[in-house]
């Protein structure tokens, strides 16, 4: 009898090329993603060292980070030097013979949206990308994690990485999320409970009824914010929903290969008595629509709650950091979140821009109008999501409500020198980071689900999507 293993241990063992003497192991990398923010630097770095991509068929490149999202876009960007990143990445990807999802390609979109959409990520694969939200793709049962540029170069050149094995953390979420409560709310809830360093360096496996009943897209949203917990990554064991999602996707296996793969994937799960480094349990029923009040994703509270006093956050925050957050966000302890007026609303990003997110937001927006003075923007996660939404008439719901309807990309999730929300503007956003100046110098970001963003856009202040009909 071999010792019971976690799903992570199983995948680690299957990808272990060799131990490296110390704590590190040489791990096989099955898929590599690049994007135009750092892709060209990595590929040029390789070229400068006289190195080649070992397996270009297993490497992919997206145009998402810098590309404009305004209608009619091309290589020109509002970011002053953006075009250079786009053209350099295109040239480098072509020279390296890597599949590129370019501007104008129907498959273009945000890496972590199009990788599952195209069936590039599959259960049981190792996948890396020089992007911290690569953990998103763990939702498909892959071992997927974010790295820096040097590691991307290493993976491109050798199809491996030298990795220190992380400890495992099992997060079990029992029961079911209530009506109007989403995977995003759960992600923010977990952050509020264990802090933004609560899973430091650890490999999370999410499990339990609330996870198995989540849609595959909802699982992506949950895994997306593992990096906000300082985790190595997160994974969810593949099940029928995962296989149904992937079947027929362009890069997924076909015919007998699919059958063989599917049989293997069905066996990918932690053994019942596997030992995890740590286990945490939460009850899904206590999760409300959750919104951040401060400058760290851990500053998350229920939508009907009040900005906390320092005593409530002292277990994970310093006084100075708490005071900075209050001052930056222009909020006071005891203020009700729903009393905060907003200037803008944003739906998009690798966290929440998939078709299910857009459907949910459109459900809130239908036959309603964005409050006067509120700038509202929707950026679909991929061109395919955009086309699907348009086929369903969702775009007309968004635009009739007063939302801008954009081309896909990372867009205003972060400020790269191009478009931004203004200084002191209060934005409710379906993105993943509420850091100081993340969405623009001085911009105040409140993270929330797409439904909460939509409800807030209508109310002109932070609002509970469950109460809209009341």
């Amino acid at each position, binding site marked *: 009898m071999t010792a019971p293993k976690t799903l992570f241990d199983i995948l680690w063992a299957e990808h272990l*090329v*060799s131990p*490296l003497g*110390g*704590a*590190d192991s*040489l791990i*096989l990398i*099955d898929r590599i993603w690049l994007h135009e*923010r*750092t892709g060209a*630097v990595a590929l040029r770095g390789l070229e400068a*060292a006289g190195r080649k991509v070992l*397996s270009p*068929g*297993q490497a992919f490149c997206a145009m998402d980070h810098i590309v404009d999202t305004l209608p009619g876009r091309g290589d020109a960007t509002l970011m002053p*030097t953006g075009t250079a*990143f786009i053209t*350099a990445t295109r040239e480098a990807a072509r020279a390296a013979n890597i599949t590129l999802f370019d501007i104008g390609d129907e498959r273009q979109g945000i890496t972590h949206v199009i990788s599952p959409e195209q069936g590039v990520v*599959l259960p049981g*694969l190792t996948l890396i990308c*020089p*992007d*911290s939200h690569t953990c998103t793709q763990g939702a498909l049962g892959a071992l997927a994690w974010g*790295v*820096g*540029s*040097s*590691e991307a*170069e*290493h993976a491109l050149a*050798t*199809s491996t990485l*030298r990795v220190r094995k*992380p400890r495992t953390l099992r997060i079990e979420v029992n029961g079911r999320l209530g009506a109007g409560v989403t995977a995003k709310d759960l992600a923010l809830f977990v952050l509020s409970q264990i802090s*933004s*360093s609560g899973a*430091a360096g650890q490999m999370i496996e999410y499990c339990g009824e609330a996870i198995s009943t989540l849609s595959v897209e909802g699982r992506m949203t949950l895994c997306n914010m593992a*990096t*906000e917990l*300082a*985790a*190595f990554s997160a994974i969810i064991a593949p099940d029928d929903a995962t296989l149904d999602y992937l079947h027929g996707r362009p*890069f997924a*296996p076909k015919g007998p290969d699919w059958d*063989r*793969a599917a049989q*293997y994937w069905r066996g990918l799960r932690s053994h019942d008595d596997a030992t995890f480094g740590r286990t945490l349990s939460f009850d899904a029923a206590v999760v409300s629509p959750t919104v951040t009040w401060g400058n*760290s994703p*851990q500053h998350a509270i229920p939508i009907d709650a009040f900005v906390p006093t320092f005593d409530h956050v002292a277990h994970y*925050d310093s006084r*100075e*950091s708490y005071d*900075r957050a209050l001052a930056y966000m222009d909020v006071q302890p005891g203020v009700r979140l729903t009393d905060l007026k907003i200037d803008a609303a944003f739906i998009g990003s690798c966290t929440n821009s998939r078709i299910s997110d857009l459907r949910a937001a459109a459900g809130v927006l239908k036959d309603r109008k964005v409050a006067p003075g509120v700038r509202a923007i929707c950026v679909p996660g991929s061109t395919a999501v955009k086309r699907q939404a348009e086929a369903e008439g969702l775009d007309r719901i968004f635009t009739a409500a007063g939302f801008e309807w954009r081309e896909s990309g990372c867009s205003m999730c*972060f*400020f790269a020198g191009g478009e931004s929300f203004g200084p002191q503007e209060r934005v409710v956003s379906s993105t993943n*980071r509420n*850091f100081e*100046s*993340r969405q623009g110098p001085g911009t105040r970001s409140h993270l929330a689900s797409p439904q909460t963003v939509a409800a807030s856009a209508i109310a002109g202040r932070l609002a509970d999507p469950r109460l809209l009909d009341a």
Partner: protein
Amino acid sequence: MTPFTTLDGVAAPLIRPNIDTDAIIPSREMKGVTKAGLSDGLFAGWRYTEVGGRTPRADFVLNDSAYAGASILLAGQNFGCGSSREHAVWALAEYGFRAVIAPSFSPIFQQNCLRNGLLAAAAAPDFIAELAAGVAAGPQDHRVHIDLAAQTILGPGGAEARFDIDDEAKEMLLHGLDAIALTFRSLGAIEAFRAQDQTRRPWVYL
């Protein structure tokens, strides 16, 4: 890569939790397709009086001449969280930092440090506070000493702590090793592994 053996340096305190890579190098400061030219953008949002400007803010530690030439950064927990941008490490290195001492680091940031010859050493918050207090008496004369081989940090007031680092990371830093060059030695084993794996998981190989 420059080997890291011992360092006797000016230590600058920036002790806040969760300093993210957007704060270390704002995306708007990453203007070129290059690893260089980033040091002016280091901590730009805190270091300058206005966005895109270069007028120093008097109250930011790196603008205090007492800390001129700092090569060690003292920081709070979860340093380097957020974006995986290696530009954060390139900017710190180009500025002159060789080491960051913090209670904890984002895993991606810590790995990026290793690949660029920077030491990211974890130490207890109390010890870091003690270092900062010792340094404050006169940063140029009250230096912090790091000995990687011995895995020790020695403060100006005699405060001493040992830090953990795994053997491979230590070797790579001590000798300034290039990870890709090292792994190329295993290329035969990698190819053999892939060939065998391809018969077992054919759908993986595109």
